[in-house]
Structures are given as structure tokens and as C-alpha cells.
């Protein structure tokens, strides 16, 4: 697997050099390449599309302005996610200062992992029940509902495919904290999805 911590490809190095030289076409390429992923992160952190778009716009502007200082210690994508995460966090703190606080306490380490409660095996549902629009909406709503500090780790690691090290770099966490938060997020989502899929499966099971 490639290491996103390193500005790995010559394409990326060339793009960064062009951005640093103020090449307009390079900025457009960067938007084309990275805006969709930045939007997926922002949309999952913010309440609506407009706020998510603002975060992406702020991220790209801020990146283009500070690209001269980009050292290539992390990949460009990791660096952009870091800027986007911080931009989203600033906005969330401004709009609801109490809700994004130090809820991180106790999230790292295995102590006090929530005990699984949902014990129905819903894996046997037909594939069409997992593929449906309703199921996809449930999956998305569950991510939105994750506690903030688990959510961003889950989005970057599981949904955007960053490595543990790259996600740690983007979020200013230790790799160990990324691993335990990802695990907590998965367990949390399993509980939440089980509630939905069990209800789907049980009427059939009772017949």
C-alpha cells in the first residue's frame, strides 16, 4: 500500500510545484481532484450543504494562500483534510460552542468500551435490503449522529481511505488514538445499524 504521508507520486510533486508557482490551471486541477473528498468530509461534519460548501471553499482558498509553506511532510490530500477539519471545527465551535468541547476524554484506550447490546444476527438479510435507498440513508444518518471525535476518524480512515498514520497526521492525534477511535466508531455504528436491520429482519423471522 502506498504511504499517503509522503508526497508520493511525481504527478503530485509536479502539481505542488505548479501550485507554488501560482499556476491557475494547477489550482483548477486541485479543485477537480480534491474538492469531492473535501466535500464528503465537510458534509458529514456540518449540518447542511451550504455550510459544507463554505468549508470546502475556505479550505481551498486557505490552501492556495499557504501552499508556499507546504513542506510535503504529508501528502497534499492529507494536508487538505487537515485544513478542512480545522475549518469545520472552527465553524462548529462558533455556531454551538458547548457541543464541540472536550468530549474526547475517555475515548482512547480500551477501558470502558461500551458493551455490545444488540445481539440479533441481521447479516442474513437479502442484499437488496442493504442496497436500498433507505438503507443508504440509514448508513449516512448514523455517521452524522456519531460523536464528533469518533466521526472524523471514521470518515477519514474508513470512508476516505486514509492510512492510520495519515489520519493521525491530519487530525493531530497519535496513531494509537486513531485506531481506538476507529474501533469505537465501528462498534457504535454496529449498535445503531442493528436497531434498524433487526427491525427489518424480525418480521420475516417470525413468519
Amino acid at each position, binding site marked *: 500500500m502506498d504511504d499517503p504521508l509522503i508526497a508520493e507520486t511525481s504527478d503530485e510533486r509536479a502539481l505542488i510545484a505548479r501550485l507554488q508557482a501560482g499556476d491557475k490551471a494547477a489550482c483548477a486541477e486541485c479543485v477537480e481532484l480534491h474538492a469531492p473528498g473535501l466535500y464528503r468530509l465537510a458534509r458529514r461534519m456540518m449540518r447542511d450543504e451550504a455550510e459544507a460548501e463554505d468549508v470546502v471553499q475556505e479550505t481551498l*482558498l486557505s490552501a492556495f494562500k499557504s501552499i508556499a509553506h507546504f513542506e510535503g511532510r504529508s501528502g497534499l490530500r492529507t494536508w487538505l483534510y487537515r485544513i478542512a477539519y480545522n475549518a469545520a471545527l472552527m465553524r462548529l465551535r462558533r455556531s454551538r460552542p458547548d457541543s464541540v468541547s472536550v468530549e474526547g476524554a475517555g475515548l482512547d484506550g480500551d477501558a470502558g468500551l461500551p458493551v455490545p447490546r444488540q445481539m440479533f444476527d441481521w447479516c442474513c438479510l437479502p442484499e437488496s435490503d442493504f442496497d436500498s435507498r433507505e438503507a*443508504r440513508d440509514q448508513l449516512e444518518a448514523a455517521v452524522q449522529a456519531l460523536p464528533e471525535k469518533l466521526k472524523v476518524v471514521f470518515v477519514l480512515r*474508513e*470512508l476516505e481511505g486514509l492510512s492510520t498514520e495519515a489520519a493521525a497526521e491530519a487530525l493531530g492525534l497519535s496513531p494509537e488514538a486513531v485506531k481506538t477511535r476507529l*474501533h469505537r466508531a465501528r*462498534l457504535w455504528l*454496529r449498535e445503531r445499524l442493528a436497531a434498524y436491520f433487526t427491525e427489518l429482519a424480525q418480521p420475516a423471522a417470525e413468519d
Partner: protein
Amino acid sequence: MEPHDCRHLLGDLSDYLDGQASAMLCAEIERHLEDCANCRVVIDTLRQTIRLYRDLPGPLLPPAARERLYHFPDSGQFLRP
């Protein structure tokens, strides 16, 4: 198996599912799974949860928003070529 084994193994399930658990830990988990129906359900539904998210397309950048990103009002130098 005693219930405390379930609690003990809970923290290692992601490593196990991601193929990052040591051979010794894998063997310990698999031994436990043979006797513990609840843990089998947890691990199967956890695996399924991970799979469902890997296949989820995710929110699409709306085309109008994408267009606007090329036309930031205060970024004359960053326009589409």
C-alpha cells in the same frame, strides 16, 4: 467461556477484522468464537457494518457548488484557466 473473555477480546476485534492481529490473538479469538454465540453475532455484524460503509458512495458535491468553487468571488487569481 466466561463473559469476561468477551469483554477482554472486545478491544481487539477491529485488529482481528483488519487482519492486523497476531497469530496468537487470532487463535484466541477463534477459540472463543467457537463457544460464544453472542461474540459470533457481534463480529459478523461488525464485519458487515464495515463492508456496508466501504460500499457507500457518500455525499456528492453538487454540480452548482462545484462550479462556484471555480469562481470564488475573492480569488481572482484562482479561476478556471
